[in-house]
Each structure stands twice: as C-alpha cells, then as structure tokens.
C-alpha cells in the first residue's frame, strides 16, 4: 500500500483517469462503455472526483457572490453541505446496484459508483466556473449564471442515464425503468435507516431508564 502510494506512476495513472472524465462527458456512449471494461477509471479516481465535487459544493455555497446565491451563512454547515452531495450518490449506487443485479445488469457496485461520479463532471466544472463568473456579473446578468448551472444539471442527468445504459448494457427504456426503481429504493433505504435509528434510540432509552431506576434505588 505504502509502496503504491510512493510510486510516482500511481499519480500519473490517477491523473490520466481523472482526465478521462473530460472524454466521458463529451463522448458518453463510448466513454462510459470503456470506463470499467478497459479500466479507464478506478474507484480511487472516482473518489478523488467526489471529494473535489464536495469541496466545490462547499465553495459554491460560501464563495459565490451573494447576488446569485443567498446562503444564511450564520447557519451554514460545511460537512452537511458535503454530505448532501456524497450521501445521495452513495445511496444511488447501492440502490441501483441492488435492482440492476436482479435485472441482468452487467455493472458491479464499484462500476456504478465510478460511472455516476464521472457523470457529474459537468456539474463540478460549471459550479467551479460559476464561482468565478459570479464575481464579475451583476444581478440582472445572473440569468447567465443560472442558465449555465441548469444546463450543467440537465447534462449530468442525461449522462447518468447513458452511464447506466452503458455500464449495465441496457436499452434506454430499461435504464430509465431501473433508475426509477433505484429512486424508490433510495426512499426505502432511508426509511429503513430512520426506523433503525429510532428503534435503536428507543432501545437505548429503555436501558438507560432501567439503569437510572436501579441507580436511584441503590442510593
């Protein structure tokens, strides 16, 4: 592990893999087909990209000129902002993987994760560009900024669809269907989590009050 980290080739490889994101967003069909089959990207590179995405998101919320974006900075929470990016992507990967394995999907969990993160590249780039642009335009010219971000969002959305098609070797319809199922799956996972935590806290409170009873008896 340490040896790998010390090897300079690891980093040139990583850089190459990150550069592949740019190829993916302009040639999605080809790009996402090869992304796992030809090892053009790895979990490591996707994670780096995700971290960058989180950082850019935090920067977007804090550094964008307030004409374009008003954030109540008193209540701003950077980890929460980062989580609001990571958690949906991870949930999506898991839920999508869960359904696509049932529907002959070719992609592994790691493939889905990598492809999804790579599909968000336009959003990362446009958000970063938006931070810079917002410093130079006025409120009325803000249309430019907002349009740019909207286009990036739509672009990313389409890329995710194509990515799912290519990774799982699906038709478009099947990709859409499994994606919808995956969204339901996300809801289900969240529900289970909430249920789990509320039950655990109830159980904890039960034992805690039991403990209190005993302690009060003894004193």
């Amino acid at each position, binding site marked *: 592990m340490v040896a790998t980290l010390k090897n300079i080739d690891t980093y040139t490889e990583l850089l190459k893999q990150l550069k592949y994101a740019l190829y993916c967003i302009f040639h999605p069909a080809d790009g996402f087909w090869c992304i796992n089959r030809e090892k053009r990207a790895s979990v490591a590179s996707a994670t780096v990209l995700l971290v960058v995405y989180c950082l850019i998101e935090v920067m977007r919320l804090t550094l964008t000129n*307030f*004409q374009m974006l*008003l954030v*109540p900075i008193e*209540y701003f929470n950077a980890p929460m902002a980062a989580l609001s990016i990571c958690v949906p992507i991870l949930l999506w990967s898991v839920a999508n993987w869960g359904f696509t394995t049932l529907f002959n999907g070719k992609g592994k969990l790691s493939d889905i994760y990598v492809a999804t993160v790579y599909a968000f590249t336009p959003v990362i780039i446009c958000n970063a560009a938006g931070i810079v642009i917002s410093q*130079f335009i*006025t*409120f*009325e010219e*803000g249309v430019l900024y907002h349009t740019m971000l909207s286009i990036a969002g739509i672009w990313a959305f389409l890329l995710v669809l194509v990515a799912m098609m290519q990774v799982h070797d699906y038709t478009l319809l099947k990709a859409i269907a499994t994606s919808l199922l995956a969204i339901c799956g996300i809801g289900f996972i969240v529900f289970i989590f909430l249920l789990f935590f509320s039950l655990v806290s109830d159980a904890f409170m039960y034992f805690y009050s039991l403990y209190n009873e005993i302690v009060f008896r003894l004193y």
Partner: protein
Amino acid sequence: MRKLLAIVLSSVLLIGLASTVHAAGPTNYTYVYGFWADEIATPDAFAVAGMVYGFDYGIGNFNNPQDLHSCKLTNKLYIADTGNNRIVVFDLDESTDSFVLNRVVTGVYIDPADVPVLRDVGEVDLEEDDEEGAPHFDDGEHSVDETEHFDDDEDDVNPQTDEIDEQWTMDNGQLTIDDEDENEIDEDGLVEDEEFPLYNEDGLIFSGFNSPHGIFVDKHGEIFIADTLNQRILRLDNDFNYINSVFRPDDPTVVDDGIEFLPLKLVADFSGRIFTQVRNVNKGFMEFDVDGTFHGYMGASRVEPRLIDIFWKRIATDAQRRQMELFVPTEYNNLSLDHDGFVYATLSAYSGNPFDGVAPVRRLNAIGEDILIRNGYAEPAGDWWGGSFGGIQGMSRFADVTVFPNNSYAVLDRTRGRIFMYDYQGELLYVFGGIGNTRGRFLDVAAIDRMGDNLLVLDPRAATVTRFAPTRYGSYITAAMDYYYSGDYDKSAEMWNMVMNLNGNYDFAYIGMGRAALRNEQYAEAMRLYEIKHDQENYGKAFQLFRKDWIEANITTILLCLLVVYVILKTLSIVLKIRNKRKGE
C-alpha cells in the same frame, strides 16, 4: 425564491424564537421581521402619549365606539360613539398636548323631507364575526322607528351643544344639560319632550343618530356620518349643520332588493365622491356623489377559483354543490383616504396563504384597481405566521388603515391588536401594540387614524382612544422616509444614520444609506451597505456602476495585460511547435 427560502428557513427557526417573542417590561414590544424572516426586536417607534376616556370629560364612557377621524386642519378628533348613538368631538389643545371636549352631537336638524324611510332589516349584527367575544351591537332597545318620533324617554339626550362650558350632568348614565333656558322656542304641540324641541326655528326636524358606525371629515371640513341603522349617510357642514343625506339607491337594476343599505365606514374624496362600505355588500364600495346620486360599485375583489375547485365543481352532484363553499368576493371592512385621494382598503379575510390572491391591504385607484406597491420581503399582510401564543391564534385580520403623507401606512390588526407600519414600498418598518390591559395595548381594536405624526387607536371594548406619539427612533425613521420622498437623499441618509445609531440591526437603515451612497456615486460604500442587507437587486445596480468605473479607470492596464498574455501564449505555442518539429525529425 428569496421569500420561499426565507419562509422555509424561518419555519425551522420559529421553534427557537417562539420562547423569546414577548419581552415583558415597561416599554411596548416593538419588532420587525428580518431578511431571514426572523423576528428582530427594535426600539419603540411609538410611545403612548395619552388616553381618552369618555368618563374623564363627564360625558359618560363611550359605548362600543366604532370609528374615529381626526382632522389636522381643525385639530379636531371625531369619535363615532356607536353604542351611545352620538358623535363626540374633541379639540387638541396643543399647549397642554391633550384633548379638550368640544361637543357631543346626538342628532341633527334635517329637512322634514329627508326623514329616512326605513326598510325593515330585521335583527342585525353589525360587528364582524369575532370568536374572541368582542362586543356585539345590541339593538334591542333602540328600535329603528323610535328615531323618527324621538319620543323615547331613554333617549333623553341633548340635541346639540355648541358650548363646552355648559354644565354636564349624569342622569342614569345618560347625559342631560342642566340648562333651563334651553327651551326658548314656542311649544306648539309638536314638541313632546320638554327638554328640547323636535323642530327648530327654521322648521327643520330633529333626527337623532342611530348607531353611527363611521365618520369622515373631508378637506373642506364637511362631515360625513354613516348613520347605520337610520340607513343613511349624513352630510353636514363643519358646524354639524345639515346639508343633505344619501339614501339607498332606489334602482333595482343596480342594487338587489335583498341588499340593505347599512353603511358602516366611509370616506369622501376631493372630487366629491363618497365611498362607503355597506354591510353585506361584496361588490366593493358603493360610490355616491355628495348629492346622493349612486354611481356604482368600486373596487370589487376578483374571485379566482383554483383549477382544482373548478374540477370538483364539475363532477359534483347538485346536492354536493349546494354544500360547497361559495366563491364570493370578500367584503372590505374598512377604508381610508390618502393625501393623493386614493382609497386604502382593508379586508379581514386573509388566510395566511400569500398565493390565494387575497390582498388584505389595497390601494384603489379611481377605477378600483389595486395599485399598492408590494416590494417588501413579504406581502403587507401583518404577521408572517399565526402561531398560537397566549390563547390567540390565526393570521392577522386587519381592521383599519391610515396613510401618512409620505405614503407609509399603518394597518391595525384585530387578531393581536398590533399596528403594522409599512413604507410606501410595502416594507414592514415596525410592529407594536398588542392585546392586553396595559397602556399601549388594546382589548379590541376598531379604528386607527393619524393626527399629524401621532397615531390614534380606538378600542371599542375598553372604550378608549389611545394616542401614540413617535419616539426619537420613530421620528428619525419617518423623517428619513419624508426626506427620501421629497427627494432630499443626503438628508435622508443622515436620518438613516441616526436610526442606525439607535438600532444597528435595522435593515432599512442600511438600505437607506446605501441608496444615498449610490446616488452620491460612492459605489463601493453602497455595495458594502447593500451586502449587509442582502439586497441583491440594488447591489447589482451599484456593482454594475462600480464595474463600469473600474474598467474605465483601468482600461489601459487591462488591455496591456491581455496583450502580454496573448504574446506569451503565442510565443509558447511557437516554441512548442518548433520543439515538436525537432522531436519529429
């Protein structure tokens, strides 16, 4: 978007804020809503300068007074003492800064031809439905026919007194005059009551008020009284001498037979038009000219049923349809005239949903369109949420509005007895008042009016008039707005600066100073002030000018930089090309 965001955020914040809403103490609690829709306490803008109790003047307490009107021209305050069927007039004594009783009027001598022919209206409850149990008018003992003959012993009230020096005595709670020389006129059998004559020397017949609900004094000093249960509007000169009456229009094509003419509130504008709010009329205000000719309705609220309602109505059966809510326009409940002659109207039907189209305060132009400017954080609709504190819940329901010369206006909220002050752009400036028994709070509110820079609030349950005078803080705000309104932006900024010294949390101080900075071409300063206040649009304006100036000042540098970058890039590409060529060889 900003508003939506603010609402979402603030609903989260509200839970935390709820515990700090009511600060106890000798001062009134004054607050304003900030950008993120949180309640921000401010210094008091108005303080109680005096209270008017009827009892203090020896005329017995007011009984359920419903309207008041102040006239700066004559320094007079008119109160429609509805339950006592009289109009009470006070003078403002400026030397002592207090009110002095001018006269009590219980009726006027009118042309016998103008004696109202009353339609049977049955039992009427003239007050608005009020779940808090505000006093309801009881017309049990004042039947409408009695007014014509005026033979009721209980209505043993003086017709009119011009001198204040006369002896006032109380007799079974009713007022009489201890003046023996009053009955100078021959009693030729027409006068049934010994105390005062039914006919005066001009052959005019005395006609007492019956539950007068509204009073208005126009620019020329003419007095208009909505004599509700007499079903007429009286037009009097400034000395309460009869001029003419306005009756129910006798035209079935314009006024349904079912509609009774029970005028409650009224104003008369400069061009001699009377606008009156009539009970159970939802077509808007009735418009008359001063002679009593009916001109039509003005300012009816539009009804825009939602798509979903139309759909349900389509598929519902007739029986179901009958049970459904009717889509009728909401009735106005009060009106006021601004100095430009526009009518400000209030509705009490606001549900708290800003998207349902009910604008609870409106400024109506001559053809009845709402032209109120709404550029504030939220629509001028009172409190932004109707929590349930102290047994009061629900959204603000407005009772009355009064307009200042700089087009800022104060609206009276019946739900919580609060006064909301808005500027001419619809920004909420401050809120004060409340339900309670202390000075500066009310049991119920019926009417608000201004007298100079003072505010007068009528409390029908406590039967008092509370006079508020602006504090230093309040007068700075008013002055700042006045200066801005008259175009003196530097003075305005100066005033806003004073406001900021007293309250560093006040958004409008920043925006006011920013506005002045923008005008004085101090763009960077304007940007700083606007940024504090989160004013994106104005910041954008300042920034545009700042950017233009900056580019103009630094155009040579920018061009030079661009040139340098271009040259470097060009050289690089040439160098790379040569190198590649060499490699290729």
